């Protein structure tokens, strides 16, 4: 075991330990400290990706002094490394872009608590990315839920309290189902470490015993995590939770929290149950169906909104549908496309939420489309960032969204005739709907304001951090499109050794 192999462990422990420390720091110092920790985690993740590129396969890292069937483990490979890097970069940039708004929305003596929650969320995300133990995954899943709920309630104005309550109720249903799934699976296999469970499940599948309980377990876990990640029929909490919280919270919730759950689900598919066993139960078909309906219904709901933040929130529902569609295809290409879309959507959605915050600020704090007319001129960088994000979501070439849509279409070619037709049809409809609401918004941003409307002069007030974060986000978006080949190669290499 070499020193660099401890990086995943450091990425979990550092934010977790600093979260405890941050609670006693005063506002300004808490902010500096959080920034330092997130920067260190991002840098470590980047180094880790670079080192993993030259490392064959993956390795397990023993936590504590108990070896495999009893102890707790971390397992890292190429896919985990890339995911960890993306998650930490987005976390850092989201915090940077929303700093001004955090000052505005959160009482100054409560701010250090906000940073505590942000650090806890980072730790939970990293733990879910790297852990090899199902029960550890459950514990960190609950930590993530609690932290996310606190991020929503941090802003006390407006609907946030009700939004947080609804969020908690749906999430508790989801985690209850997930916990029941783990319990049943532990009961069936006698293990909690993912690799050991997989061996036991493979033996069960071969002997034909306990097929029914196994199917129930897979269904319960998939639906539980589906509820938590806002898969279509369970998305009712999304618009309020994303629409009214402070921009950093909205960005983090939509692009990281839901993605963390999806990553865990992919991990369960590959490492705990095995893709062929999952495919034989028919659960993937159900997820596939939900996803297709979600892609269309999310977009239709988005068209009907008159509030920019709620529109982006409903667009998230549609995009989560894309990811689940890729997973529902059940083949290697579909999974690769789904993982790539996790990154593409995460980078894009966080930028859209931050940019929407800036645009609303330049329009007298209103998020309504009629007040946002011309805000692209009043807040130029936010306008350009929003345009780039919108184009990426629509699927404009050279941006991340285009590559992932193309990947989905290519993956569908390997998925059998019915699925291919369904995917291509829904992709076309969904892209068309996306174009309607995103381009409508972009055009609104650059139209002349309503006659008689006067907006306070905002130029330069947004500050350096906000602009820098949007520029960096835009750069990451373009990079994701331009260097997609390398990233996809990394993902498929990681997926090959993931199970």
């Amino acid at each position, binding site marked *: 075991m070499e020193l660099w192999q401890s990086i995943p462990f450091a990425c979990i422990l550092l934010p977790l330990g600093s979260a405890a420390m941050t609670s006693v720091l005063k506002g300004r110092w808490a902010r500096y400290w959080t920034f330092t920790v997130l920067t260190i985690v991002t840098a470590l993740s980047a180094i880790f990706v670079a080192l993993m590129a030259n490392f064959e396969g993956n390795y397990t890292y023993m936590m504590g002094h108990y070896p495999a069937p009893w102890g707790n483990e971390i397992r890292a490979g190429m896919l985990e490394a890339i995911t960890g890097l993306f998650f930490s970069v987005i976390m850092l940039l989201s915090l940077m872009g929303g700093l001004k708004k955090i000052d505005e929305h959160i009482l100054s003596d409560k701010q250090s608590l906000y940073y505590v929650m942000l650090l806890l969320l980072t730790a939970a995300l990293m733990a879910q990315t790297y852990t090899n133990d199902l029960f550890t995954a459950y514990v960190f899943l609950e930590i993530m839920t609690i932290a996310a709920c606190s991020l929503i309630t941090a802003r006390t104005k407006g609907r946030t309290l*009700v939004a947080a*309550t609804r969020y908690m109720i749906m999430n508790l249903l989801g985690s209850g189902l997930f916990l029941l799934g783990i*319990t049943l699976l532990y009961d069936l296999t006698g293990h909690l470490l993912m690799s050991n469970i997989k061996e036991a499940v493979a033996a069960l599948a071969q002997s034909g015993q306990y097929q029914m309980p196994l199917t129930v377990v897979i269904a319960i876990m998939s639906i539980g995590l589906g509820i938590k990640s806002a898969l279509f029929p369970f998305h009712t909490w999304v618009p309020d939770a994303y629409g009214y919280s402070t921009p950093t919270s909205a960005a983090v919730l939509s692009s990281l929290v839901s993605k963390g759950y999806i990553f865990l689900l992919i991990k369960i598919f590959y490492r705990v149950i095995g893709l062929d066993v999952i495919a034989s139960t028919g659960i993937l078909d159900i997820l596939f169906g939900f996803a297709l309906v979600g892609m269309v219904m999310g977009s239709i709901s988005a068209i009907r909104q008159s509030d920019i933040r709620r529109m982006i929130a409903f667009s998230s529902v549609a995009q989560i549908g894309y990811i689940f569609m890729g997973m529902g295809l059940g083949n290697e290409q579909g999974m690769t496309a789904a993982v790539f879309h996790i990154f593409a959507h995460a980078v894009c959605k966080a930028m859209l939420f931050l940019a929407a915050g800036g645009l609303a600020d330049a329009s007298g704090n209103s998020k309504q489309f009629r007040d946002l007319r011309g805000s692209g001129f009043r807040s130029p960088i936010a306008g350009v960032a929003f345009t780039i994000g919108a184009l990426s979501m629509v699927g404009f070439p050279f941006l991340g969204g285009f590559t992932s849509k193309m990947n989905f279409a290519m993956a569908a070619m390997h998925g059998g005739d019915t699925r291919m037709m369904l995917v291509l049809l829904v992709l076309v409809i969904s892209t068309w709907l996306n174009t309607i609401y995103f381009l409508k918004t972009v055009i609104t941003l650059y139209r002349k304001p309503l006659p008689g409307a006067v907006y306070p002069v905002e130029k330069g007030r947004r500050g350096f951090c906000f602009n820098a974060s949007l520029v960096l986000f835009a750069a990451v978006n373009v990079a994701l499109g331009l260097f997609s080949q390398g990233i996809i190669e990394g993902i498929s290499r990681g997926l090959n050794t993931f199970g």
Partner: protein
Amino acid sequence: MSFHNYEEMAAMILFGIGFTTLLLQKNLIKKIIGFSMMDSAIYLFLAAKGFIEGRTAPIVVDGVTSMEAYINPIPAGLVLTGIVVSVSVTALMLALTVRLYRRYHTLDIDRITALVRREEQ
């Protein structure tokens, strides 16, 4: 045919009751009660599964070190961890409920939503 798995059956029924209460009740306090029932049902299931008739907790007394004499401690450990998690979540939910009640003077989630809508207009 005789049944043996009384605890497991009870746990599943309780889980169902808790789940539907959490999902369908309008009253926030009843929702929280439903959540507690749901989680406790899972812990009951785990505890029942972890116990083997005729064996004792894995604490060595009287020098008996044979594996056959003891049960596996992990399910009990999981139950304890799970209880800690659900206590903290319950505390958070109760705190949210208190804040909602102070502002809207009702516990009915539908009425609260209606009040919020009216507040905005």
